[in-house]
């Protein structure tokens, strides 16, 4: 059925991902793709919200938003005029461990993308009017967020699951914390913490590796700074010792959002792939897996009811989320708990596991067809030190997972009697 595919790309691997480390610690990874006329960059620096003082939560996020608001060489409008005139884009965002960036352009504009990246990271000027304007925008966003049942349920869930830990705090802060951040705070955060060691830049598209290395070296080689002090020590993360139930009241809403769950494996945990396949069976495969089948298909309680396994550097979370009519939250929570009991007491069926293994392997070409899909995959390999051959080994790693390993992973993390259960919506009706 398939036509000859001489131009079809192989799965990325050591033969076509080229990696170079600069003397200042910046790691560059390049994979060429001349089937496309564009180029994508993706990466991060090793500074994130874990450095935020709690009373100034959102500082990393605010700093990231300011980077393109003016630099030593360009005003805000000049920078955006260059990018937008070329049909290019670039943006920054902060999470717990990193400040990340992503950009795209036609391939001939790679020099523009990388020079803008360098200028923004190394020499932002934090213009007073831009800093103030951004603060207003962020405060309005927080006001809007406080009305979102989905976001408020997620924020409260994280806070209860990771008390006093950066994983439990929203990276965009709160109204009271953003309000007190000053321009001096932003300048100091950047000056003290931004540094090249641990920085990763991935470039995928119609470009040659040597071309990329030349441009990155031109713009970044002079950036020499010592790594900052280590972030403050965080509490040890422990699983919930009892069931925790909370309802966030947001009046005037037609639907409540429910988030329930517990800790999950960190990305490098040996059980991660078994947990991931288990999670797919539980709440993703087909129309949202077993959870979707129970809550949506059979009970008709929700348009969306699914699971997520979030695996980070130091820990993770295993969550079930659903949008439910306020009068049905308790019923939905009971159905979900019942599914979690089944998941942690019985082996998944052989058919379920095979179906999901086939799904994981079969969808690889779909996730790798675009430059951004490839760039994100390579960035993941580097972030978690998985190895450049990981994608090529991936099918055999997936096939090796057994039903017993899935059950072991489920039992290791999910205790249906000690879940965090959060809902957000009207009237104080709880889950």
């Amino acid at each position: 059925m398939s036509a000859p595919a001489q131009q079809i790309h192989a799965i990325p691997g050591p033969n076509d991902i080229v990696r170079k480390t600069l003397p200042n610690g910046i790691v560059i990874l390049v994979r060429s793709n001349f089937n496309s006329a564009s180029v994508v960059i993706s990466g991060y620096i090793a500074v994130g919200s874990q450095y935020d003082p709690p009373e100034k939560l959102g500082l990393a996020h605010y700093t990231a938003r300011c980077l393109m608001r003016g630099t030593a060489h360009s005003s805000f409008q000049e920078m955006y005029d260059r990018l937008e005139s070329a049909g290019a884009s670039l943006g920054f965002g902060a999470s717990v461990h990193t400040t990340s960036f992503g950009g795209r352009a036609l391939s001939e504009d790679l020099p523009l993308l990388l020079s803008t990246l360098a200028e923004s990271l190394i020499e932002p000027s934090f213009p007073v009017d831009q800093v103030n304007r951004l603060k207003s925008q962020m405060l309005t966003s927080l006001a809007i967020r406080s009305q979102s049942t989905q976001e408020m349920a997620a924020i409260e869930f994280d806070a209860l699951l990771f008390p006093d830990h950066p994983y439990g705090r929203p990276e965009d802060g709160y109204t009271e914390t953003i309000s007190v951040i000053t321009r001096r705070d932003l300048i100091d955060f950047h000056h003290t913490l931004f540094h090249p060691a641990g920085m990763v830049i991935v470039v995928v598209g119609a470009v040659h590796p040597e071309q990329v290395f030349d441009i990155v070296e031109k713009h970044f080689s002079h950036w020499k700074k010592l790594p900052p002090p280590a972030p403050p020590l965080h509490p040890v993360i422990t699983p919930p010792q009892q069931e925790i139930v909370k309802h966030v009241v947001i009046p005037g809403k037609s639907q409540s959002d429910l988030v329930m769950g517990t800790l999950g494996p960190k990305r490098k945990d040996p059980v991660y792939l078994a947990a991931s396949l288990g999670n797919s069976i539980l709440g993703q495969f087909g129309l949202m897996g077993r959870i979707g089948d129970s809550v949506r298909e059979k009970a008709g309680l929700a348009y969306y009811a699914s699971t997520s396994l979030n695996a980070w550097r130091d820990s993770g979370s295993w969550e079930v989320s659903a949008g439910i009519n306020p009068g049905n939250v308790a019923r939905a929570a009971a159905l979900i708990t019942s599914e979690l009991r089944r998941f942690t007491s019985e082996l998944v069926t052989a058919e379920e596991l095979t179906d999901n293994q086939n799904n994981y392997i079969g969808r690889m070409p779909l996730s790798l067809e675009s430059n951004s899909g490839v760039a994100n995959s390579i960035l993941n390999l580097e972030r978690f030190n998985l190895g450049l051959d990981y994608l090529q080994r991936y099918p055999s790693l997936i096939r090796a997972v057994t039903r017993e390993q899935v059950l072991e992973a489920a039992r290791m993390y999910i205790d249906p009697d000690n879940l965090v259960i959060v809902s957000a919506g009207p009237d104080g009706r709880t889950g």
Partner: protein
Amino acid sequence: MGDTIKEYILENGLKILLSEVHTAPIISHWVWYRVGSRYELPGQTGISHWVEHMQFKGTPTFPAGVLDKAISRDGGMWNAFTHLDWTTFFETVPSDKVDLALSLEADRMVNSLFDPMEVESERTVVISEREGSENDPLFLLDEAVQTAAFEEHPYKHEVIGSLADLRAISRTDLYTHYRKHYNPSNAVIAVAGNFNSAQLLEKLAAIYAQLPGQVVAPPVNGREDSQRSERKVDVYGPGETTYLQIAYHAPAAREEDFFAFTILDSLLTGPSSLNMFGGGSISNKTSRLYRRLLENEFAVSVNGSLQATYDPYLYNISITVRPEHNAETVLAQVDAELGVLLNTPVSQAEVDRAAKQARALFVYGSENITNRGFWLGYSEMFDRYDWFTRYTEKLAGVTPTDIHNIIEKYLVPDQRVVGIYHPEGERS
């Protein structure tokens, strides 16, 4: 995109569009039906979308719960969407797994069961989907604006339908709607990816040729008198944030004015694309309304939305107002900017820049085969498939005079709806 597209029409009226792309071992297969909210009568709003949901609830060959898993098992991605003029179902699969997608779509084109118990279960799911939308103030505002913008045309109703109709629609209503609109004459199959056209055409012909076709006209003639004076709607709800939505009547996609309007939107609110998958976006910080509204502290965001539709629809400008201002002040600023554009024509350089941005977004979108499959059939729903092959060329031909004419003809206060969402506590 440089695609070579092959067009075939079977005897039963089924149109097939094929575009070979051999850069990835993937095929994206789309089935489009000419049915959406434009085909709905009052009392049955939301029925097309609900029928789309029922298409996942089983046939004798693929019972409920089997359909979705079948594609996922092969590593495929699938989904379905209902819009104003169309309903579509797609599967993107590894190229050696496409046969299942072909069989599945042909089967549910005519064999969906619409089991009464599944209908009732899905009623609450669709209502749940609507309730989720109602949580968003922008949905409430958009619904009020859309209702006010049209006196007669079915475009006045949201695709999700009203709560009253969702509670009242029966199984018979749904099944009748399905049998009327789901047939080969009312459908287009569009496939992009790694296949051989002759072989794929042979498979499609074998699967579909024996199904009878019947052309279907929309029940409503679609005529709408021109609006004669400005309409205002006020929506009240929870929160602290004021939103302004200005809706102007826009040309249909197949009218020549649509392309100049696209450029105007880009100049006013920033570049946007009609890509459904991939492609990303370009920021709007050098756009006219961003500079006037955000840099002068009137607003915290501005977005423009022009849809490609069969009949004339709406051009929406949505603005999040800064707390220290009111919506009327922001509206006056928008009018001031339109006044500037009328009195000082844009330059050809500005127009060319907008056309380049559109071209870049098109290039980015073409990396994604699902997106290429999408474009093929999408443009057939309001014009012909070559609407999209000529898209960037048409944009490149727009002139400053065209922009001036668009503003004079369409962006007229008497012909717009102004909607304001007031957070509770502002009600006087």
